[in-house]
């Protein structure tokens, strides 16, 4: 019983963080058709900005939302500086891998210079611990498990039930046709990046509440998010969300039965198998589009 509870809980928790990260990657890929390798840095920066605001004396309830909004601005600026000027180039996918990696590295080292290498921690969403099914868990983790699906559902409603969300889905499918109905395509690209950066920043705040933060804290979640989007497919945002939870459960089960040491190898094994059997991802079609 406690084994099942542990795997279930661990899977839900890790899956939530991966989903928050992967959805942003997928959103940027579907709308702009590029991979954002500074996505992990967004996560780190969100956490550090929140930490700084709390340090300045703001209560967490104010500091966290402000950090998320600041991250939206950071995402917008990054898009305008290292992605937008390259749109229309024939080899844009590769070039943007390099420019976003470069920008990420710059921000990472900037964070190291400003905040130093000493590990930091931000306040938990809710303090305290409890026991569920014989497993001790923190209320912070439970809060994340509950909040994440709500945020993802809100994103779904935004994309599927609002005019602006419709415009984002349209840009994802046909850029020329979007211009011809009068959509502001550059602004929508900025918006996709802003939403992705906010979600990553929030994931960073979640992570900084139970684990020590460092300037490189985003690289492992970025790697996992990449595995998730490859596994689940990137042609939609629901694919990566399901895949994130699946990977979360898989990881939790692996580390319970085989130990943490073997988990990455098994994870990549599953990834390679997926690529061989269904290269477009298990929940995905071959076309781009947000649905």
């Amino acid at each position, binding site marked *: 019983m406690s084994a099942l509870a542990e795997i279930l809980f661990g899977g839900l928790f890790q899956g939530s963080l991966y989903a928050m990260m992967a959805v942003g990657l997928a959103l940027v890929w579907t709308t702009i058709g590029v991979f954002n390798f500074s996505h992990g840095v967004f996560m780190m920066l969100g956490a550090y900005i929140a930490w700084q605001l709390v340090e300045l004396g703001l209560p967490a309830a104010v500091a966290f939302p402000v950090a998320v909004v600041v991250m939206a601005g950071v995402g917008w600026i990054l898009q305008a500086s290292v992605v937008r000027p390259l749109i229309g180039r024939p080899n844009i996918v590769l070039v943007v891998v390099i420019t976003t990696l470069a920008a990420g590295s710059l921000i990472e080292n900037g964070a190291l210079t400003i905040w130093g290498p000493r590990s930091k921690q931000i306040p938990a969403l809710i303090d305290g611990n409890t026991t569920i099914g014989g497993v001790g868990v923190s209320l912070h983790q439970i809060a994340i498990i509950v909040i994440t699906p709500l945020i993802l559902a809100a994103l779904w409603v935004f994309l599927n039930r609002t*005019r602006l969300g*419709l*415009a984002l*889905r*349209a840009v994802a*499918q*046909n850029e*020329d*046709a*979007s*211009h*011809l*109905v*009068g*959509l*502001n*395509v550059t602004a929508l690209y900025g918006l996709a990046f802003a939403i992705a950066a906010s979600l990553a920043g929030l994931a960073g705040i979640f992570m900084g509440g139970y684990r020590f933060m460092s300037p490189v804290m985003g690289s492992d979640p970025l790697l996992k998010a990449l595995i998730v989007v490859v596994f689940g497919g990137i042609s939609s945002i629901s694919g990566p969300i399901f895949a994130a939870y699946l990977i979360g459960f898989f990881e939790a089960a692996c580390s319970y039965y085989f130990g943490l040491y073997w988990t990455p190898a098994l994870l990549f094994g599953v990834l390679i198998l997926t690529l061989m059997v269904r290269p477009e991802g298990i929940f995905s079609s071959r*076309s781009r*589009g947000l*649905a």
Partner: protein
Amino acid sequence: MSPVLTVEGVTAGYGRVTVLHDISLEAGRFGNVGLFGPNGHGKTTLLRAISGLLKPRGGSIRFDGQDIAGLSARAIVGTGLIHVPQGNRLFPDLSIADCMALGAYSARARPHEAENREKVIKLFPKLAQRWRQRVRTLSGGERQMVSIGTALMSHPRLLILDEPTLGLAPKIKDELCASVLEISRGGVPLIVVEQDIEFLLELTQQLYLVNHGAVATEIKPGESLDHGEIMSMYFGH
């Protein structure tokens, strides 16, 4: 009548390739305008330059007295010049309802959304039956109706159609022709690019033959032309 659209000495192309060489034409003086000519000679490029998808390198494009050359596609949609691109690919994973909402996205079109939706449904009743269906699942003719319907939702003052009958069966072509004629009768002037000359003769009053990125021949209303003449224009003498 003064022309609605005047293209003067426009040069445009992609990268190092120049497709349009100093092309000039007028639309709206004698009614609807048809463009025809061999593939790959700049008809679609001209339309892309007019609607702002491609920045012209030189020349002027005036729509209703305003110079629109070099404006963004969005700004041009805002003037009421609406371009239906070739190939009815549009938004494959959106529903017809979504496409219509997008058509009415611009600030100019939004106040007329309900009224234009009525018009589109009256013109293409078939679309109403498939309102929630994805565009991908529709037939070629229906997809073309969605493309034209979306353009009507943008409240056009000038409608540009790029090969609307491409790949359609003859019966569907005739139906489409009747619908487009009705749009024109409703007071929207047209510019139509077509390979099907019969379709053009039915719809338009003035024809331009576009060859090597320039106007090779202009056929004004009243000037007769027969099939043989057109064939010789296409293939040379």
